[in-house]
């Protein structure tokens, strides 16, 4: 055989092998093998209203029910160092949460008060834009989701998120989870993680764990696309603000602070 023809045939073979996965996809049976859980909550753009006023006025000063519920449900470890801290939902002082609202004569009602912060599930998310593997992506119901199987740990999303919502597993998180929830996976060393708006609970027809945990109903969850949803009703009735709306990421978490 001529060298030239050998290389040619080899080349075509390689090309064929390369095309094989593509062919498989098209040849694959497209019968409906998968379906959504019929109990799943339907939504086009999930959102939340955080009524901090209610939390401050009605809640006990040291209440962390929502945080505990979230972190227990999702096996969020307590690393015990600020440097490697992993958190899905936590509080920051008012002045740090809304730096552009800060001035010397803030009302006593908000001054230094803790504000609940977590992933804003932006409609125009910068973290999704920068992820080089689509490990973080936007679902059709607006949830910004992470595929921990795919994350390479480059932390570009952490640099891109203007809300500091993302944590990185600097080490194996397992030893730092006090009470393991067997129904939900943990994460592993080397991946980024954040709030998933309890998509696993929504799929089972349940509202997010933090919403359920709040005794005072300070967290309102619902579909922005539905004019009659709980969030839309609150948004119509109350004055709400958002974190850093000027950055154009279109956050989907709204705050009532006065």
């Amino acid at each position, binding site marked *: 055989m001529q060298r030239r023809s050998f290389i040619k045939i080899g080349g075509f073979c390689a090309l064929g092998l390369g095309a094989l996965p593509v062919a498989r996809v098209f040849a694959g049976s497209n019968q409906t093998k998968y379906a959504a859980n019929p109990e799943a909550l339907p939504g086009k753009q999930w959102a939340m209203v955080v009524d901090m006023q209610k939390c401050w006025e009605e809640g006990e000063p040291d209440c962390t029910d929502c945080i505990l519920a979230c972190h227990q449900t999702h096996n969020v470890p307590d690393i015990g160092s600020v440097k490697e801290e992993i958190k899905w939902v936590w509080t920051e002082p008012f002045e*740090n949460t809304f730096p552009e609202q800060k001035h010397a004569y803030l009302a006593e009602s908000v001054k230094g008060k803790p504000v609940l912060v977590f992933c804003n599930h932006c409609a125009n998310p910068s973290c999704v834009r*920068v992820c080089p*593997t689509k490990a973080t992506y936007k679902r059709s119901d607006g949830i910004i989701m992470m595929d921990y199987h795919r994350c*390479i740990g480059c932390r*570009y999303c952490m640099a891109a998120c203007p809300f*500091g919502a993302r944590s990185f597993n600097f080490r194996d998180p397992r030893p730092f989870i006090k009470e393991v929830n067997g129904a939900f996976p943990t994460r592993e060393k080397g991946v980024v993680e954040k709030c998933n708006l309890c998509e696993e609970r929504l799929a089972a027809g349940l509202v997010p764990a933090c919403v359920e945990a709040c005794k005072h109903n300070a967290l309102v969850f619902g579909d922005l696309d539905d004019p009659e949803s709980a969030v839309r009703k609150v948004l119509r009735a109350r004055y709400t603000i958002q974190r850093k709306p000027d950055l154009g990421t279109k956050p989907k978490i709204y705050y009532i602070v006065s």
Partner: protein
Amino acid sequence: MLAKALRGSKGYGQWVALLVALFGIGFMYYLAQLQQGLTVTGMSRDVSWGLYIAQFTFLVGVAASAVMVVLPYYLHNVKSFGRITIFGEFLAVAAVTMCLLFIIVDLGKPTRLFNVLLYPTPNSILFWDMVVLNGYLLLNILIGWNVLEAERKGVVPPKWVKTLIYVSIPWAVSIHTVTAFLYAGLPGKHLWMTAILAARFLASAFAAGPALLIILCLVMKRISKFDAGEEAIGKLASIVTYAMAVSVFFVGLELFTAFYSQVPGHMYSLQYLFVGLYGQGNLVPFMWTFTLLAIIALVLLLNPKTRTNERTLTIACVAVFVSLWIEKGLGLVIAGFVPNAFKKVVEYVPTLPEVLITLGIWAIGGLILTVLYKIAVSVKEETAR
């Protein structure tokens, strides 16, 4: 040709041994990092990129050494660069290889590296940076090797090499631009979100790359029979002068925009860099070192007497290189994260393992550079006979 790298003087052997040892130490610490995770570094939830990404960012600039000799030689027929294009290209090979290694050691899950290819994502700038950096590496390996091979045989390089050379010129612009875009498009990171970031990267690249090339040429003149020639060094020195002046000018533009406008978001990171913020300022001494070195460099470079004197030129080039390493590496990357999303200052200090892994990668770069330069010098010595 590779065989030429195996034979050398005693000093050569010792130098290679030193680099291998440094690489070995770095590698051991990298194994520890793989085992324990990035907890061995000083990076945190708030400063989530550190020394590694700083080196990467700076070294992309060093790779500009190639285009700054190739462009004048092939487009403007600057004959004196003919002897040193190969060294510019090989320096780019070493620099880009280091860039890629610094990205890899920074990954939390390096085993999933190829997910970037398995799930190509064109909306991510990191995807494009991977494309342009690997492309630039390949271009410079192909061009350098074939040009050198041709020189050894005393023939003209094949035609396709010339085509690749022309491609490599705009490609060089792309690596700095795309690397700048990694930073310039992130909402909320005011230090990075500046339209002139790509221009700043190009300017400092055109200063840092050729500055190192000058230093290397002067070293080669000492330890080998290869002399780049006064004219080539002089021309490179002019390039470094212009680029350094523009680079410092651009930093001045940033300072003006931030402090004349008095917009807090634009001032915070710069305040943190130069005077500290909320009483914290680990990078302050570094930034004033940058300032001092940049002034020394510019004084020495702008004055024709000191620019043409080998000793003062060397000092100027070292000053350029170190000052830009601080400004485009450490300063730019770390201060971008300060203050954090909650307007709090969280400081970053690299750890010993992190520093040793970094040194290890510099040692690999040094090894690649040494081997390639040894081959090139040997070929030049051979053909000169």
